[in-house]
């Protein structure tokens, strides 16, 4: 409908709006929005706080095609209230997931860009997070892979980080971050000695895309372009694991082993060294090609769990 992009191969995912990401991710012209902005389904809560609303409440949902396959998609606009989950925002994602149970698309894609729950409508937002996680498990159990794409300025934090953890597969870029408590939240609660939120390198070593990929918290590392995320999404749909008891038990075993092996590490670089990286300090500056070569060399970050 708008925010078209001309060249997905050079357009930054991080910089693009949610609508532009969808435009470049899907087959050209295939996106059909549900509950579009003209329906004005806006937050009923924000006016109480004298805050401006958005026509789509920061959540764009709809159907489209990815390399010819029918998919359902949801994209968060991270610049509107940090992409936070409010009542309408969350309900649109829950509704989309329920539609996937009926429509059985080839996949459901969630383009995360969120700081978590919107504090002004926190009860509705928390409820929405829980409903989304339940709905994702139902969709996965029905055989539809749920793929998360994380590379926006707000990352995937708070409840958004929890939802990401329930997806079949995740792709993340350098700029993407995945966590529950964000840097400022940790610093506020535990002090700057524990976690200095202004130390950007520390933030990325702890929650950034490369770290998450190295420790198995994400399944693909993508360049910061719309085209790279499209390629990653297609590959992850093809390799999404079954959602059964064996998968969950394997994931539980993997997480227990991860704690046993890395639980005493004080920094991301210590974990990377134990994983077998010869020069952990060089990892943050690596290009995607160099990083992919490192992943191939380490050879143990791929897993079929989650």
């Amino acid at each position, binding site marked *: 409908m*708008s925010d078209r992009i001309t060249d997905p191969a050079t357009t930054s995912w991080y910089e693009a709006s949610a609508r532009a990401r969808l435009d470049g991710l899907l087959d050209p012209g295939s996106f059909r929005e549900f509950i579009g902005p003209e329906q004005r389904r806006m937050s009923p809560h924000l*006016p109480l706080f004298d805050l*401006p609303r*958005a*026509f789509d409440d920061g959540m764009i949902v709809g159907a489209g095609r990815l390399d010819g396959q029918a998919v359902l998609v949801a994209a968060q606009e991270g610049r509107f209230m940090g992409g936070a989950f409010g009542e309408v925002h969350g309900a649109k994602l829950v509704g989309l997931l329920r539609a996937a149970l009926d429509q059985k698309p080839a996949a459901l894609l969630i383009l995360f860009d969120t700081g978590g729950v919107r504090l002004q409508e926190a009860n509705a937002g928390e409820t929405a997070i829980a409903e989304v996680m339940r709905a994702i498990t139902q969709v996965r159990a029905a055989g539809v892979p749920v793929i998360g794409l994380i590379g926006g300025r707000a990352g995937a934090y708070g409840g958004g980080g929890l939802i990401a953890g329930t997806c079949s597969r995740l792709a993340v870029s350098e700029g993407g971050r995945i966590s529950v408590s964000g840097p400022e939240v940790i610093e506020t609660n535990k002090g700057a000695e524990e976690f200095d939120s202004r130390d950007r390198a520390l933030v990325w070593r702890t929650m950034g895309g490369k770290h998450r990929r190295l420790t198995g918290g994400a399944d693909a590392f993508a360049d910061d372009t719309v085209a790279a995320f499209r390629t990653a999404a297609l590959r992850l749909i093809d390799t999404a694991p079954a959602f059964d008891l064996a998968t969950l038990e394997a994931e539980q075993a993997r997480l227990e082993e991860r704690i046993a092996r890395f639980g005493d590490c004080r920094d991301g670089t210590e974990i990377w060294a134990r994983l077998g990286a010869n020069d952990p300090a060089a990892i943050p500056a690596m290009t995607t090609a160099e990083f992919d070569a490192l992943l191939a060399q380490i050879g143990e970050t791929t897993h079929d769990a989650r």
Partner: protein
Amino acid sequence: MEKLTFRHATKKPLAGAKAQAITGVVASGNLEVLLERALPPDACTVEIETPINGYGDVWEAVVADFVARAQPGGIRITINDGGARPDTVSLRLLQGARLMEV
């Protein structure tokens, strides 16, 4: 929250056949503009919700300038403002009109 509505008569309808377009985002110093082809071809309305009170005169001038330049006949424009400066508002309005034409 201040709500403003401006109605203008236009000399001609906005070119193109697109039914609607949206541009921008509700963020600090920014705004979102929704355009819908929903009015008679010689009319244009602009409805604004802004958290910054007291700038009705500035909005009126920016909207009048846009209508004079773009002649957006037939278009209903709705704006959610996040505290955008007048130049940003002007650019977004023209951007929106362009999206309706292509």
